[in-house]
């Protein structure tokens, strides 16, 4: 009985902590002392220049990051688990590095590399590659940077998922029944890792939808950067944007975790 009371109390305090500011924020976006109740702030978002463009750009970046981070982390995790379990601590350490190094360091590093690279490669065909990965409409260089940032989260999510299944036996059983390595990966391992893959994907997406420092300093107008730019002189608009992006990310989370759960 005391346990139940305690649980409810904790839950209540936590709910107040999160919900009250949220409710106040929502109230602020829809109520104005001079105009009264109005959804005008949300209307202004959708009609603001660059909304659809920057949102789409961030979602595309997110999708690319998810694909790349999974293609990178999953085979590496499997290879270490099956072939060289001794290397696991090494992998774990490497994937924590992006958490330790501050984003500003990445920006400086990447910017220097790009500048130096442009000079050094000016006379070679690689120059064109270097230019195209910095394309304003789809900056591949940001994808690469975000993959690095997402690696710690994706790695941990996938590692937990792999721990729950007997990977070696499943792989060997499938191999024994004639399955090629790609077949094993896509038809045996992935279906049994759905929720872990969904978790890794969501964390990567959330990261891309919220990352400001790197994108802003490198001069790309992603959704978070757009939010900051557009809301500079309109308090109500900026809070409405926060509420909207929170709702958006929440929706994506529900979709992804729903997709992960369906398999069970």
């Amino acid at each position, binding site marked *: 009985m005391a346990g139940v009371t305690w649980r409810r109390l904790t839950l209540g305090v936590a709910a107040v902590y999160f919900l009250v500011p949220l409710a106040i924020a929502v109230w602020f976006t829809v109520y104005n002392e001079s105009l009264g109740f109005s959804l005008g702030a949300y209307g202004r978002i959708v009609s603001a220049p660059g909304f659809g463009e920057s949102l789409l750009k961030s979602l595309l970046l997110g999708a690319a990051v998810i694909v790349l981070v999974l293609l990178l982390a999953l085979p590496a995790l499997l290879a270490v688990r099956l072939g060289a379990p001794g290397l696991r601590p090494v992998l774990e350490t490497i994937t924590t590095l992006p958490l330790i190094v501050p984003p500003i360091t990445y920006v400086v590093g990447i910017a220097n590399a790009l500048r130096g690279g442009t000079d050094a490669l000016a006379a070679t065909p690689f120059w064109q590659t270097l230019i195209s990965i910095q394309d304003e409409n789809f900056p591949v260089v940001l994808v690469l940077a975000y993959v690095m940032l997402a690696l710690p989260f994706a790695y941990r999510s996938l590692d937990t998922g792999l721990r729950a*299944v*007997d990977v070696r*036996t*499943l792989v*060997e*059983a*499938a*191999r*024994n*029944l*004639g*399955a*090629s390595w790609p*077949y094993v990966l896509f038809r*045996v391992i992935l*279906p*049994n890792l759905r929720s872990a893959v969904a978790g890794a994907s969501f964390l990567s997406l959330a990261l891309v939808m919220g990352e400001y420092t790197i994108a802003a300093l490198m001069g790309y107008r992603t959704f978070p950067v757009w939010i900051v730019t557009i809301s500079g002189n309109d308090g109500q608009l900026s809070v409405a944007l926060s509420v909207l992006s929170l709702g958006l990310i929440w929706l994506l989370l529900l979709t992804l975790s729903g997709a992960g759960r369906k*398999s069970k």
Partner: protein
Amino acid sequence: MTVELRELHRSFGGTVALDGLSLTIEQGELIAFLGPSGCGKTTALRCVAGFERPDTGAVFIDGADVTRVPANRRDAGMVFQSYSLFPNLNVRDNVAFGLRVRRRPASERHDRAAELLELVGLGGFGERYPHQLSGGQQQRVALARALALQPKVLLLDEPLSALDAKVRVNLREEIRRLQLELGITTIFVTHDQEEALSVADRVAVLKSGRLEQVAPPAEVYDRPATPFVAEFVGTMNHLPGRVSGETVEVFGQTLPLDGAAPGVEVDVLVRPEAVRVTPSADGRGFILASSFRGSIARLRVQLDGGGEVLADVPGHEAVRLAPGLKVDVTLVERPVLTAPRTAVAAPVEPVA
């Protein structure tokens, strides 16, 4: 289809798992690889399956050298020790997995899966998922899955060791029945001597990556080729004996020797069932303990001169031969094996 292992060597770091293992498994034969953990039996099996590649030596299946053939192109069905069913697939899709990989039509997959599930006694379980089955049922499905592609060889890697004692006995009999029915060449890896002796046509006893003996179960038990086999398979008494010519003297009895003796002062190896115990006021020992096992009772007899002897007596004599009773110990008159002298009259319990 025969399977031949030729001079297999395999080490992991400094540990030698296979040390020149050579063995031929005949068409339709069920051979059991028996030995303590680390003896190389599983490594040998994995070499046949293609999950391990020997450092040197070769594996032949049906006359063809498959040493360098990847696991997914070998014609060998395998059942694993741990439950290996795909958790995301139902029983039918698990059984039909190999057919699906080979892109057989759905109707054929369904029919074949149903037929095999019937064969392993799980008809009507096709729609269930692995987590809805007991351990024994899961291993039956794994067996059906391994057989679905009609492999040339069936490989069983301790398939029963995760199961309850009763399920274990049932399933091993069923495996044997199926194996005989299908006439499939089978390798059965186990550390359980009873399992090996009860299902196999021949038992291969391994130690430190080498073959100690390969023979039918009765021969492995009655005529162990080496002291290791004698001690690993069944229970063996070591009794002090003295060799003279073709005979050995033990407990005042003179018994014929089986094979050459390693010296004059030797250990005579005697099974508990070859030891007779009779009540006698001036006997050479007394009963220390008795454990009743239904049809027999195993007595632990303390000898006056030091040392112990294990003896199996019919179960109904357990009441008469109670602990504390003064008894005499005699040996059944038959040829006995000898080993270099190690201990004074100490029985050796099997390792597993």
